């Protein structure tokens, strides 16, 4: 296979329009509850997340946003003390009660965490990691995908001459973009971003935010943040959480202009 005709396959882009209609939600959460011993961390979460939009989970730290995010790709499995009940449908597949292989489910989602965690290998191998896990071994294909995804996050020109140097040699901002590229390389439908700019300088944050605006054409983005301004800048939908519950949700303009609950009012006052 030559590199030229790879482009015609367009294998890196998820086939967004063919699978379901624009209107149906890509994630549907039904009666989700999470307990740790006596603590009730997430309480009766019901939520639908629309496709190809940026949905922002907003709330003070400790309100359960990150746990909710981690439920969606079952990273909660890592914490044995967590008890998760309910349903999370991702493209009609109930991922909490499924026979499908968990790694396959996780590959539907790219994760961006609070701090960049580059794998302890080279820049190239970081991006190639997920592709190889899918069983793809063709060198050309991997090369192509690495380049394409690094370009997509605007990192290619900065690293193309040192693809084999360790990923930790990059700056924090570059590392976070590398993590984004790495996540995109497995062709996810959804990007889960857990306060992805909290460790970054303003310029790197700006780059990431701008990339999100571009990426939402092809991906559904779920962004956890406690920064109100970021929510205003990016959100198509806002889900406001407080103490393990979803308090309010809606379009950002309406929600922030007309908060219905005391919790959100307080948050808006303190958040500014």
């Amino acid at each position, binding site marked *: 296979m030559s590199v030229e005709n790879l482009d015609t396959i367009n294998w890196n882009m998820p086939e967004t329009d063919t699978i379901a209609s624009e209107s149906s939600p890509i994630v549907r959460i039904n009666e989700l509850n999470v307990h740790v011993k006596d603590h009730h961390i997430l309480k009766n979460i019901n939520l639908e997340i629309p496709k190809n939009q940026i949905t922002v989970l907003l709330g003070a730290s400790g309100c359960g946003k990150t746990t909710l995010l981690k439920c969606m790709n079952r*990273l909660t499995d890592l914490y044995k003390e967590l008890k998760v009940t309910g349903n999370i449908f991702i493209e009609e597949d109930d991922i909490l009660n499924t026979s499908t292989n968990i790694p396959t489910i996780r590959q539907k989602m790219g994760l961006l965490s609070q701090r960049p965690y580059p794998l302890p290998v080279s820049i190239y191998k970081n991006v190639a*990691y997920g592709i190889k*896990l899918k069983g793809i071994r063709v060198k050309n294909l991997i090369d192509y995908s690495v380049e394409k995804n690094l370009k997509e996050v605007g990192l290619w020109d900065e690293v193309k001459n040192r693809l084999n140097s360790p990923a930790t040699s990059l700056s924090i901002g570059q590392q976070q973009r590398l993590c984004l590229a790495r996540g995109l390389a497995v062709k996810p439908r959804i990007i889960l971003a857990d306060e992805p700019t909290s460790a970054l300088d303003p310029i790197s944050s700006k780059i990431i935010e701008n990339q999100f605006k571009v990426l939402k054409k092809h991906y559904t983005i779920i962004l956890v943040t406690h920064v109100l301004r970021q929510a205003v800048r990016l959100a198509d939908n806002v889900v406001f959480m407080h103490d393990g519950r979803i308090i309010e949700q809606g379009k950002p303009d309406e929600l922030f202009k007309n908060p219905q609950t005391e919790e959100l009012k307080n948050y808006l006052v303190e958040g500014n």
Partner: protein
Amino acid sequence: MHFRRRIVDKISGFWMVTTMVTILLMPVIIGVGLYIKAQPLFEHNSVWDLISSSDWSPSKGKFGFWPFIAGSLYVTIFSFLFAAPICLFAAIHLTQFSSKRLVQIMYPVIDVLAGLPSVIYGVWGILVIVPLVSNFLAPIFNTSSSGYSIFAGGIVLSVMCIPYMLNMLIEVFNTVPVGLKEAALSLGATQWESVKHVVIRKSYPGIISAFGLGIAKAFGETIAVMMVVGNSVMSSHNPFDAGYPLPALIANNYGEMMSIPMYDSALMFAALLLLVIILAINLVFRYFIHKTQKQ
């Protein structure tokens, strides 16, 4: 400030510095002390000759340490081969897979294993491992053995080194950030793949160091090994034959060392050799560990 308080502060400060400096100089003092006692030996033999020669006949004034060094290496390698995989996998299980409850149970288990005296391991070795080797293992390999052998020494030593290495490995694995594991998982790795590709790779220097320090510990262990290893110079490379490691040589001959000329010097040289080798291994690998912990 009150005069008396200042004096107390001065005196105590002085004592603190003195103790600290003394403790840190300890290896040097020990080294010099042993060197002075071993000195007469160097008048007739070069250090290299002493280490590389195999001729051991104290009554003729011939001291070749190679058979004992080789014995030590042999036992140590065996113990490492037994202990390393168990430690590695147990540490992986305890830090990556297992429930918190098992970890809670394991800490006292490791504590007690580490705290049991060498001589107890020796007794256990004589009661369990020596018969096991002579009645069961040696026949499998088509040889006969009294049981008091390099192999038995290796097994007993490995059990003694396990808590020591395991503790270090657990610490090493715990410094790998959870986020890194989550990153690998979110890219579609199975749990084991995340361990294999990320946790182990990230801990590489730490794992090597823990192994190195385990080897150093095994190399200097005395009583337990001496009780099961047979204490006669190796005549073959058969691990089911007896061996004679360096620490056992020292401990076994203290009684007669004053009766043969230069014998005491020779034994002190053996101790000096152990000190230098083990201190060197410790300094190198501890350096790695300290470096990774600071990151």
